[in-house]
């Protein structure tokens, strides 16, 4: 039971990352290879704002015997909102120069940013306590079932907001931009503005997910925010079905729930690295099978009729 709850919470947090990537890459064609970076910004922001003013690691590793000044021990809600806002703001700063260029540059820039954020987490001891990480992050309710329900609630909100945006006239501009910038601009739409919003909203939600993770794990370390996290998200979004938000949820359940997490507690056999290596291999093979035989994913994008659209918008 404990085990199922753990997996469910992790899957739900990954779902938020997947929905955010789908918004960016699926609907707007913005390749974000820095997911782990924005996830880390959210986790660290929330942790730093809410963690106790004094604790041992700070005194030993970071050299602040009296505790770090300026730690405000804010409530969770402040942490998660600030995490969302800061991740979005950093995305905006990157977007201003990069989104005027071609999408490909964003791929490179986002990798760079994630690396820079990882570097800060490792080296700015006064802020992040380096590789020892931050502990004693408070979990609201201190009850894992209630916390899981909170994560589900946030997931539902993110799902709803992204779905609404994608269906709205705003989302039409995203999808048009994805296909043909010149045509979209010639119809009076600002391509830069539409991309910027998709980029900022997506990264902000990744920050939200980071905050949820930090308060669930109650301890975070720089080593968790590495490219593997980013690629897992990419894999399940592609498997689940780019441009279909329900598909993304199913992809997360399959890849993260069943394989990545579900196999973690399998009895080990052979050398200690055999089981983790097998897990990665299986995930890799699944990705290849999907790209080869079902590139549209488990659930492909579906067009809505105008009659249904008018009724339900």
């Amino acid at each position, binding site marked *: 039971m404990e085990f199922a709850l753990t997996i469910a919470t992790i899957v739900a947090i990954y779902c938020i990352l997947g929905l955010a990537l789908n918004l960016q890459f699926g609907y707007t064609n913005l390749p974000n290879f820095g997911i782990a970076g924005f996830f880390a910004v959210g986790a660290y922001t929330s942790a730093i704002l809410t963690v106790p003013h004094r604790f041992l690691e700070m005194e030993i590793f970071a050299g602040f015997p009296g505790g770090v000044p300026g730690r405000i021990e804010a409530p969770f809600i402040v942490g998660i909102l600030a995490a969302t806002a800061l991740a979005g703001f950093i995305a905006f700063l990157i977007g201003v120069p990069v989104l005027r260029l071609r999408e490909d540059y964003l791929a490179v820039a986002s990798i760079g940013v994630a690396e820079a954020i990882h570097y800060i987490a490792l080296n700015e001891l006064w802020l992040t306590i380096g590789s020892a990480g931050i502990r004693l992050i408070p979990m609201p309710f201190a009850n894992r079932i209630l916390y899981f329900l909170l994560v589900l609630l946030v997931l539902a909100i993110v799902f709803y907001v992204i779905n609404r945006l994608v269906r*709205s*006239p*705003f989302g039409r501009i995203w999808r048009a931009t994805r296909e043909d910038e010149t045509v979209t601009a010639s*119809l*009076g*739409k*600002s391509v830069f503005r539409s991309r910027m919003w998709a980029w900022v909203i997506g990264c902000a939600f990744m920050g939200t997910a980071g905050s949820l993770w930090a308060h669930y794990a109650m301890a975070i370390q720089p080593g968790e925010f590495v490219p593997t996290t980013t690629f897992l998200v990419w894999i399940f979004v592609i498997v689940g079905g780019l441009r279909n938000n329900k598909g993304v949820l199913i992809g997360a359940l399959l890849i993260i729930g069943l394989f990545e997490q579900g196999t973690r507690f399998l009895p080990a056999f052979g050398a200690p690295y055999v089981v983790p290596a097998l897990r990665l291999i299986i995930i890799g093979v699944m990705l290849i099978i999907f790209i080869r035989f079902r590139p549209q994913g488990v659930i492909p994008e579906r067009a809505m009729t105008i009659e249904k659209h008018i009724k339900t*918008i």
Partner: protein
Amino acid sequence: MATILEAKEVYKYFGGIKAVDGFSMEVENKSITGLIGPNGAGKTTFFNVAAGIYQPDRGDIFFKGEQIGGLRPDQICQKGLTRTFQIARGLGEMTVWENVMLAPKAQTGESPFGAFIFKRVKKEEKENWEKAAALLQEMGLYEQRNEYAKNLSAGQRKMLEITRAIMTDPEILLLDEPTAGATVDETKKIMAEIERLRDEKGLTFLVVEHKMEVIMNICNPIYVMHNGQNLAVGDPKDIQGNKQVREVYLGG
């Protein structure tokens, strides 16, 4: 009659290629002005400059007396000038209805916050669809409204593009070979639609065409472009009787 669009000695070179080489023209309000010339004359490039896709190297472009040379395409469209493309660029992964509903200007739901003003978005979507549905009927595309644009025929895609351009509610439409790839029937329909929109809605058209029956039937005046420069201008009769024009077209 008033001039709505005026180009004054516009230049656009690509390296050594003098695509537009000091071209000038005036388009009168509510006219259907033709722009013809052999392949490579610079017509499409001139459209791209007028619509903001390229910056002119030199020269001025005035729309309703205001300099628009150097503005971005979306800004120029917002001012009331919309263009279509020589090779139909339907947004193929979107349905016909989504293509035409993309176009209307200043939709409430076009911002992340506006998208959540439910009542207004719904009302606007209904109104825009009423307009779009009528136009699609007119074009004979209504039955295909829920199809992906990529599944349409070449001529249908041209018509979709024109419909979409009209949905931006422009004052002037720049059509780059609107009947290319269209069947005889579709060509007639497109011609009739252009005239109807001019007569009923007071729209102005600048039309690049190769089909002589289109040009000579609905365009007046007609500008002839050659090597990026002005070769001739006049009504269909003048142009048909112009020796230089014949030479350029017949390669003589």
